[in-house]
């Protein structure tokens, strides 16, 4: 029937229009809701819940992330360090503490390569790549030059490995410390010449395998006590630090920044490639080494005042620490016992020094 069809159509049209209006209203309301922050956060939470298929308590999701270190980064990604490199963590934390007004003198070491080749650099601070044994002297010259051209604020840092500090660089370091040149000398210690392929340095601990102290002739001499040497120079501030305790390292770098004169930071930085440890254990090793007192964290001011920063409630035996590193796997019970005695002796000596000051 002709008359009915149009009526049906009209009704249908009216229905459609009504639907469309409702759709429109619904859309507007949705928009209003979405504008509100609260709703958005709640929606995200719901999305996550649906994704994971689990229910969460509401108060947990409102939690803000509280970082123990400032979020600004002066070190970028894309650098050439091995997986799990301790030296990069050391640099990351130190730069957070020192800030943009920093100049680094980097002698030959892992970081000469990690930073990236010419014409690139992964750091947001200027770097003077200097000759191997000259870290402290180059930094002293750089600081003097900067002051003469009117920049008295920039912190000049000599950033060297253990080889460039304990061995070939010790003369320049001693000279600068004796003159009390206004530089911050930071040694990141991975206990061998890692950049050139794991050769022994005087920072290599007793018992370690390196390519120049193979298992049949493993290193029989103890690790050189660079902190005692630096304390003997009576510099205003020196400290040991570990990447397993980043907040402590950050605090010490910040403190060192404010002191005038030669400051020395000795940072323990595990190297999975050279120590034959798993890359994921890097931070764990850096923590264990403090807990078993092989590498205690302490500060010395003017060679007199010793302050121990962390006294482990329970001094752990060194076995677990040694077991995690392939470079110690050849050691016998006897060797480990001797090493444990040495660690105990050194710890006792440090405790006595701290008491006496």
């Amino acid at each position, binding site marked *: 029937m002709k008359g009915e069809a149009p009526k049906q159509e009209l009704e249908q049209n009216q229905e459609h229009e009504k639907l469309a209006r409702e759709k429109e209203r619904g859309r507007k309301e949705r928009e209003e809701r979405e504008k509100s922050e609260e709703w958005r956060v709640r929606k995200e939470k719901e999305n996550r819940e649906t994704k994971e298929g689990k229910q969460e308590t509401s108060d947990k999701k409102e939690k803000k992330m509280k970082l123990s270190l400032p979020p600004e980064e002066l070190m970028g990604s894309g650098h050439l360090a091995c997986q799990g490199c301790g030296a990069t963590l050391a640099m990351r934390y130190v730069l957070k503490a020192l800030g*943009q*007004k920093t100049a680094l003198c980097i002698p030959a070491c892992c970081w000469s390569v990690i930073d990236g080749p010419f014409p690139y*650099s992964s750091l947001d601070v*200027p770097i003077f790549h200097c000759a191997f044994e000259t870290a402290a*002297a180059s930094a002293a010259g750089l600081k*003097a030059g900067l002051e003469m051209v009117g920049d008295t604020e920039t912190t000049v840092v000599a950033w060297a490995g253990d080889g460039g500090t304990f061995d070939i660089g010790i*003369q320049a370091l*001693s000279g600068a410390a004796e*003159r009390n040149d206004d530089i911050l000398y930071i040694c990141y210690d991975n206990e061998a010449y890692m950049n050139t392929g794991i050769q022994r340095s005087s920072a290599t601990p007793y018992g370690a395998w390196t390519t120049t102290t193979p298992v049949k002739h493993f290193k029989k001499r103890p690790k050189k006590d660079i902190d005692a040497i630096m304390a003997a120079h009576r510099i205003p501030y020196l400290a040991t630090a570990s990447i397993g305790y980043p907040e402590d390292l950050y605090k010490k770098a910040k403190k060192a920044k404010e002191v005038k004169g030669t400051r020395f930071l000795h940072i323990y930085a595990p190297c999975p490639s050279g120590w034959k440890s798993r890359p994921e254990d890097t931070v764990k090793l850096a923590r264990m080494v403090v807990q078993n007192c092989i590498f205690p964290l302490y500060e010395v001011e003017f060679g007199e005042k010793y302050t121990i920063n962390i006294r482990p409630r329970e001094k752990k035996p060194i076995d677990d620490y040694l077991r995690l590193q392939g470079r110690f796997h050849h050691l016998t019970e006897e060797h480990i016992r001797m090493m444990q005695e040495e660690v105990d002796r050194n710890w006792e000596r440090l405790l006595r020094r701290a008491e006496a000051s």
Partner: protein
Amino acid sequence: MKKVIMGNHALSWGAQLSRAQVIAAYPITPQTQVVELLSEMCASGELNAKFIKVESEHSAMAACIGASLAGARTFTATSAQGLTLMHELLHWASGGRMPVVMGNINRAMAPGWSIWTDQNDSLSQRDTGWIQFYCASNQEVLDTVIQAFKVSEALLIPSMVILDAFALSHTYEVVDIPDQTTVDDYLPPFNPPVRLTPSEPHAFGGLTSPEHYFELRYKLQKDMEKVPALIEETGREYERLFGRYLGQVEDYRCDDAELILVSSGTAGYTARVAVDELRDAGIKAGNLRIKLFRPFPFERVRHILGQAKKVAVVDRNISYGHHGIFYQEVKSALYGHDSHIPVFGFITGLGGRDVTPETFKEIAEAALARDKADEDIIWIGVKR
């Protein structure tokens, strides 16, 4: 202002007038007076500079390089063992384009210990990319330090101002010390195109692959080639302001000379006395004193020696297994240009053995007696 000063102090005055800003030096005989006077000048305020009393020459050059990178004008001084200890860093300063100026007192290399003059120490550094000036008078030393800063900073290439141990370093001569204001006009403050500063962070001297190293060193050589022309320009400007021309070489009675002696350092002035005596005896002699050794003044050497009938090069040094070093360089400069001129190579005065006008007369006689020059070293003064 005229003063009677020793050669070492002429270096100190040169650095003071040039307003050096950072000085890092280590004592070594016969350089000690240079740094002693500079220390006093810093202490009294005559010189506004930081003096870093480093613990070795190696650290001295390292500190100078660091300071130069920061944009400061740097100066140091050393000799023999100290210079050779710095060898690694000499390459660093030139490759890094840091215009450090260094005074070097030519002293014989040990063993045995010798404090007397000999050119082997600085000549064994000829490949390091440093400009080298061999001076013959205290006045020249002072003037050359100021010119060296100007040339070095314009082209960003380090330079050495070299003088003989005791013969010049400890000899007192009358020196006209220029006034500060005019020196300031001649030598403006150091203003490098790039310097190390946190406001514009760069990494200087990072790992450089074969992809890039070649071009960097090509650029250094190209800039080295601009040095002779710049020395002429700055030397003429110095003459306008102070009345003394500072060139690449100094020729004495060479215009109509048939036998030209080629010498350097204080021996270069002794040669003039010999030339006069030879002329009196009827021999048409002349003397070419080479002052600029690196880069080698090819054009000047070819021009002046081109008219001679014989050339006698006098070396106070030796490259073992070859010949005297000035001899080799002069001969190779003439090859293809005036190869028909016989060049005789003489070695004398090593380890500070005295070089007198008699020595030069003996050299002249030996050159005149021979028609052809063979490759052999003609030793003068060795007890055989």
